[in-house]
């Protein structure tokens, strides 16, 4: 380990880490927005809704992210119509293809997590809301989704960590993320351990930040699970003490 060399490559690695964080944040936000309706469609009893959702989830969970990304980045250029259309300036960019692939991938996994959480909402609570005269939209907004989100959170955090690790493949389509920066340094300097191990350390830190952040969020969302605060002073030892 050459510490001076390590110090000199750190700025480039941090630039890469920033790209990883930005791509990941975009994919997580867009993916979540898409996953909610996808999960509702998947949990629906109507075949025109659940069947396409099932197909989408099956495809994106059953194939490697790398294949999905190649399909978007290299694959779509096969069609002249797409190359001539207004979306081409976006689809031509490796960066946006990476974001799209990660978004669709996490949509598949998140939708499946949300579906099982939606189906785990106790039937009685939904029936009670119906009995109170709530509309379907209101039941969804006030009962089903809040309960499902809380239930899904631990699995969702796992998914985000997996997505962050998965996002490292974007370097194969020339995006210079943390992995990409480390790999460029490796190829140019002919040193393997310093850039790759430093990148591994930065990925570990990112994982830690993500899991800490969501641990706090989970605690906030579930005040009922918290240990009671020290507000009620215990009458410690009162039973043991002999009456004065």
């Amino acid at each position: 380990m050459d510490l001076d060399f390590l110090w000199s490559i750190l700025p480039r690695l941090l630039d890469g880490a920033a790209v990883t964080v930005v791509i990941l944040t975009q994919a997580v936000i867009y993916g979540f927005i898409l996953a909610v309706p996808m999960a509702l469609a998947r949990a629906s009893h109507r075949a025109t809704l659940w069947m396409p959702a099932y197909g989408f989830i099956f495809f994106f969970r059953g194939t490697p992210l790398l294949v999905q990304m190649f399909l978007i980045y290299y694959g779509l250029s096969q069609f002249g119509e797409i190359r001539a259309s207004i979306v081409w300036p976006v689809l031509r960019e490796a960066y946006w293809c990476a974001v799209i692939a990660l978004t669709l991938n996490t949509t598949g996994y998140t939708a499946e997590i949300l579906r099982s959480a939606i189906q785990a909402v106790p039937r009685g609570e939904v029936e009670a809301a119906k009995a109170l005269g709530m509309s379907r939209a209101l039941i969804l907004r006030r009962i089903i989704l809040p309960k499902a989100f809380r239930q899904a959170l631990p699995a969702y955090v796992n998914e985000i960590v997996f997505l962050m690790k998965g996002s490292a493949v974007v370097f194969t389509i020339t995006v210079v993320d943390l992995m990409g920066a480390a790999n460029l340094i490796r190829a140019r300097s002919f040193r393997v351990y310093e850039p790759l191990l430093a990148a591994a350390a930065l990925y570990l830190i990112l994982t830690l930040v993500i899991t800490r952040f969501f641990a706090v969020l989970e605690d906030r969302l579930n005040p009922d699970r918290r240990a009671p605060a020290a507000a009620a002073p215990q009458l410690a030892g009162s039973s043991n003490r002999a009456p004065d």
Partner: protein
Amino acid sequence: MSELSSLFGFGSVGWGGQLVAGLSMTVRLAVVAFATGMALGMVGAWAKLSRSRALRVTADLYTTFVRGVPEILIVLLLFYGGASALRQLMEAFGHTGPVEINAFIAGFLALGFVNGAYSTEVFRGAILAVPKGQIEAAHAIGMSGPLVFRRVLFPQMMRYALPGLGNLWLIMLKDTALVSVIGLSDLLRAGYIAAGSTRKPFTFYIAVAVLFLVLTVVSMIAFYVIERRVSRGVRRG
């Protein structure tokens, strides 16, 4: 249809042969890496449950590292790092020149290393699910440690481990695609080469995706059958 057969045909014109060869490489890599991972996972679970603090800490470091570091980084680390270490070793013995390690070996070691960390957790949970009294009873009637493992612990823990292992196998199948990055002629690499020379990237990447889906479905059916078989002595419902 004739266009399709010329693209996917076997023999000198189509790419069917290459895709099948790639598929076979993908499955072989997944099987070898999965077996490596299971062996590592057994050792890891044993270390995590051992009385030695040093073993427990080592196993914790291992699983924490793998859970927080991208698979592709571990693949590259083993591929280039292994070559670099080997070159230094060879130079010490007077051999100079470029050294490259086999992509299959680097790939299965890296994927096995990753899989081992996840299967450590699966096996740890499975071992804890076997009632302690059974192990104690086996020891009490004079069975040796290895015999207790073979006759009492292993057959019962595998039933608990099976669903988790099934998931890990599906993850493993998909992770093999990463090894194409270091040049192994797997399924994705075959698709990549075919896509490049025919200028039909979408067609070939879809074909690759469909073949991965076929592997997934076949595996799911196989695990369903195995799970039913190993649970045949267990009452359901």
